[in-house]
């Protein structure tokens, strides 16, 4: 019998970067989005099948805020990893994502994470240079353009995160 693991994974990102769209399309969801506005959190699940095990990523979709100071860091307690989401058409959201990463690192130490540059389907509005991406990758980060519309990068990101979080 294949072992089944659960891992808590948080979805972080600035306002309107498309976290929820990613979640809505590619994961198992039972709760309504109103939780995001009321409780600030919405729980979803993404099951990733690895060769030797099955990992259930319990996704804590956290309400996106551009003011990172009001971000409730307690939600990250016990997380095995996180997904940073930025809007590839808005460079400022990348900054927000990077700031979030720093705060998480500060509070919880280094945790596995993936950085998704979302809305890759809007190629003509794309505003993040390949150089920047390469720079980020040089840090050993896993950076991946993604699209909620095409599904590009989504499964790979979760799979990678699952491998690292469960490792």
């Amino acid at each position, binding site marked *: 019998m294949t072992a089944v693991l659960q891992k808590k994974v948080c979805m972080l990102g600035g306002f309107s970067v498309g976290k929820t769209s990613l979640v809505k399309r590619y994961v198992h969801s039972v709760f309504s989005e109103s*939780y995001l506005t009321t409780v600030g959190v919405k*729980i979803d*699940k993404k099951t990733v099948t690895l060769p030797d095990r099955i990992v259930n990523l*319990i996704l804590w979709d956290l309400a996106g805020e551009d003011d990172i100071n009001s971000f409730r860091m307690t*939600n990250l307690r016990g997380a*095995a990893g996180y997904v940073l989401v930025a809007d590839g058409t808005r460079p400022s959201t990348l900054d927000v994502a990077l700031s979030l990463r720093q705060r998480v690192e500060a509070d919880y130490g280094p945790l596995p994470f993936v950085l998704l540059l979302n809305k890759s389907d809007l190629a003509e509005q794309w505003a993040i240079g390949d150089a920047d991406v390469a720079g980020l990758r040089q840090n050993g980060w896993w950076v991946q353009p993604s699209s909620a519309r095409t599904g590009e990068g989504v499964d790979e990101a979760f799979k990678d995160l699952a491998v690292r979080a469960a490792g």
Partner: protein
Amino acid sequence: MTTSPDILEGLLRSPSGDSAIDRKALAGLLVEIAQSLRPELRGQQNGVQPGDLELEQLRTLLVGREIETLSRLTGVVDDPERLAAAIGRVLPTAIAQATSDTRMGHVLAPVMEKAAESSIRNDPKTLVNILYPTIVPAIRKSIGETIDETFQRLNQTLKYSLTWRGLKWRWEAWRTGRPFAEVVLKHTLVYQIEHVFLIHRHTGLLIAHVAAENAVSQDPQLVSSMLAAIQDFVRDSFSGAEHQGLDSVQLGELRLWSEPGPFAALIAVIRGDPPEGLHDTMRNILSRIHAERHHALESFDGDSAGLVDVEARLRELVALSAHAPPRTRLGRVIVVALLLLLLASAVAWAAWWWHNQRLWEGYLDRLRAQPGIAITDAGKRDGKFVVSGLRDPLAVNPLALLGESGIDPARVEAHFEPYQALDPQSVLKRLNASLDPPPSVTLSVAGNRIVAHGSAPRPWLDRAHAVAKALPAGAPGFELAGVRNEDEADEQRRQVDEGQWRAYVAWLRSEPGIVITQTEVRDGKFLLSGLRDPLAIDPLELLGEAGIDPSRVEAHFDPYQGLDPQFVLKRLQASLNPPPGVTLAVDGDRIVAQGSAPSPWISRARKVGSALPAGAPVLDLSAMRDISEGALGKLRDAIQARSINFDSGKSLPTAGQEQVLDEIASDLNELVKLSSTLHAVTRVTLTGHADSQGQGTSNLSLSVARAEAVRALLKKRGVDPDLLQVRGAGQLEPLQDEAAEADASARSVNRRVSFSIGFEEEP
């Protein structure tokens, strides 16, 4: 002092890892040798007596290195400080390793207890300071729960203390010896734990989840994380709740009870009304889980494979609640089913009742609309419809209407008293039935009246008029003016006839001696009966004068004596036949007779007069005179005063008496003449007498002969002999007593023929 073999073994184990020599076997061999050489050493296990040089040398030779190690160790062991330092270096590791050994807890527990005890004794404040942050909320919570539980018990106890169920539970409490409140809670707090989540507090990941058989929920992993998120949200959002999560959440019938533990939280989803004591149960189970799987919980990283056995504990909780309600739930299902059944039958009954009631009311309305039926009372009794009232015999039969109304006649009791309805329809019916109008007459209702049209014979009309008059007050009027009398012509003719008849009868009534007792006109004939004095006029004789056809008259008269004076007079005149000298006349209420008549007539009249019935007029005879009292009487007396004498033994009169005879004859003739004028007949009796001489028989014949002789003499003188009667008296009627007087003269006187005269009525 002895050392445990384990310690020795440990000490003998060389850190350098020299395994070529079995040091234990070697040491054992040396000891064996030493003991065989010196039997006094046999009591000691390990100790070695110093002082034996050879042995010492051998030992040094053989186990010099070991002795060196041993002495070093002994130095450590013997020096408490060094020993403490040495143990102190390994103690945490040792304890950590020994933790998995259950004996560790047992061994340490008394020591810890004592330590804690003395610590508390020395300074309780320290413990209080340590415990305060954790214990006070716990106490507060516990007290709160206890109070809640108390109130819950009180509420339930009060609620059910006086009900029937309450009494039943009191009986159960008395029987089982349990407190009443507990019994009440057992029966009233119906609940079921549907889900139990064991959630890792740090990550919010689901460790274990157990659901009741019939419970459904979303993905438990998501649910548990969401619960954790909400707990965090509450904790973060409201100050004062920093160390606490949500205790309980109630959403309608569902309750969420949460029990936090050091590493895991137990969350129960309960449907219904759980007893507050369930908090305790949950806490106990959670602490048991923590005690048993402390490490696994602490190091939980999302792999719950190693915690599968925890589910059994959670199942206990689900099972705990499950065994109370099922019966109740089943009971409730039965009760609900029964109630539904009851309700259904009630509804069905009500519908049936309503239907019947509608039918019944429809029937009553119909009845009320019927002329000639008055309902005084209607209702239901003993499941039957009852109706009573008044019914005109001509009205429709109430039972006959039942069929049309769709009501089973067997379910109806009807009682109607007969009465005469006064509504026009009923009266019309009754008139049709009682008058049986001929085909030429039609009766109909016009407004509040009944009108007859057509033509009818008089008898029917008369009957109809009588009926119309006899209709009770309040009944519609009965108008017969529209009916023509078919017998009018006949009637007019009859009226004429009847006028004549009435006149005739009146005439009859005025006739004396006729009494009309009955008069009738029947079938065109006149019937007449009564009394008629035979002296009265014959009624039939009058018919002609009255102009009535005698053939139409049937008269019957019984004879009777009329007491009318005229009639009595008539009858007296008929019966008395008064002589011409007598007149009878009515004078008031008397009938007076006047004139003279022979006395026999008078005496007869007197008799008749006295025989007249009571109430009849009296016959007055006081004015009557006897005919003999006048000239007739003088003549009679003169004749009677005379006699014709005879000689003894002789049948012829003594000579010299011719003159006397002449006178007598003359008087007699005059008398006859006179009496005939008076309508009387004169009767003259000649009686012959003899004296006492001679024999009686010869005297008798002599006397007859003397009378005959005189008769002949008178005949000779013109007297009608028919008027003269003779008789012989013999010697029996002497004029003088012969013995007393001189015989000769007396005898001479006695020898004679005497005259007696009487008057009789004319035949």
